[in-house]
C-alpha cells in the first residue's frame, strides 16, 4: 500500500519540527525500523536547514514544500523551494581523511544525506529547486 503526504512550512527553523514530526509518525507507523526512521529524520534536518539558511537569503521569506510517499519497501521525499538555484550535490564531499579541525567548512550536512539515503537527486524545475531522496527499508 502506498500513502502520500504533503506539508508546507515557511522558511524558519522553528517550523521544521512540524515536518519531522509528521514524517516520523508516518514512517514509524508504516513499520520501518527505528534506525531507518532516524536516518530519514537526520537527512530531513540537514535538507531543511540548508533551505532555511541559504535558499531565500538572510531574512528572506519563502516557502518549503515537502511531499513524500511511503510504501512497503521505501520512503521517497521531495523538497521544493523557490529560492536561488542551488544544487547541493555539486558540493565536494568533505575529505574524511583530513582531520576534522583542519577541514574546509561546509558540506557536512549533504554528505550525511548521501551516506544515509539510498538515492539523492537534484533538479531545477522552472523557478524551483527540487531535491528528491529515497530510503529503502532495511531488512530485518
Amino acid at each position, binding site marked *: 500500500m502506498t500513502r502520500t503526504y504533503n506539508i508546507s512550512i515557511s522558511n524558519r*527553523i*522553528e517550523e*521544521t*519540527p512540524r515536518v*519531522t514530526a509528521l514524517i516520523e509518525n508516518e514512517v514509524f507507523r508504516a513499520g520501518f525500523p527505528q*534506525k531507518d526512521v*532516524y536516518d530519514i*529524520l*537526520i537527512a530531513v*534536518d*540537514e535538507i*531543511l*536547514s540548508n533551505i*532555511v539558511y541559504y535558499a531565500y537569503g538572510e531574512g528572506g521569506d519563502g516557502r518549503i514544500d515537502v511531499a513524500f510517499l511511503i510504501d512497503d519497501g521505501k520512503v521517497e521525499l521531495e523538497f521544493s523551494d523557490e529560492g536561488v538555484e542551488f544544487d547541493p550535490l555539486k558540493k565536494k564531499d*568533505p575529505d*574524511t*581523511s*583530513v*582531520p*576534522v*579541525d583542519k577541514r574546509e567548512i561546509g558540506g*557536512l*550536512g549533504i*554528505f*550525511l544525506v548521501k*551516506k*544515509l539515503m539510498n538515492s539523492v537527486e537534484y533538479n531545477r524545475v522552472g523557478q524551483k529547486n527540487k531535491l528528491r531522496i529515497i530510503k529503502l527499508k532495511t531488512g530485518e
Partner: protein
Amino acid sequence: MEINITKTNGTHEIFLSGRLDITWQEPLEKTVEEVFDENPKKVILNCEELTFISSAGLRVFMKAHKLSSTTGIELYIAKLNETTKKIFDITGYLSIFNLID
C-alpha cells in the same frame, strides 16, 4: 531535547537527552560556552540519552573541541550509542574526541 548539567570537583558534565537537531544547535552552543566560561578542569558531554544527532549537533561538538584546545580544559564524550556513534564515524569526527564509557 533536554540539557542537564552537574558540577562536581572541577568536572562539569552536560547530559544530553533526546534529539540534537537544528532547533537545538544555538541553545546547546550557548550552554557549552557558558560551561567552558566557568573554567572547570574537565568537561564531559554525556550522550547516553541522546537519540540522534545531525550535522547541526556535530558543529556544537566541534565548537566544544575548539574551546578545549584553546583553554586547555579537558573534553570527553561519554556513552555514544550505536545511532549517534555512526554519525560521528561517517563524518570522521570520532577520531578527534576522547571517548569514554
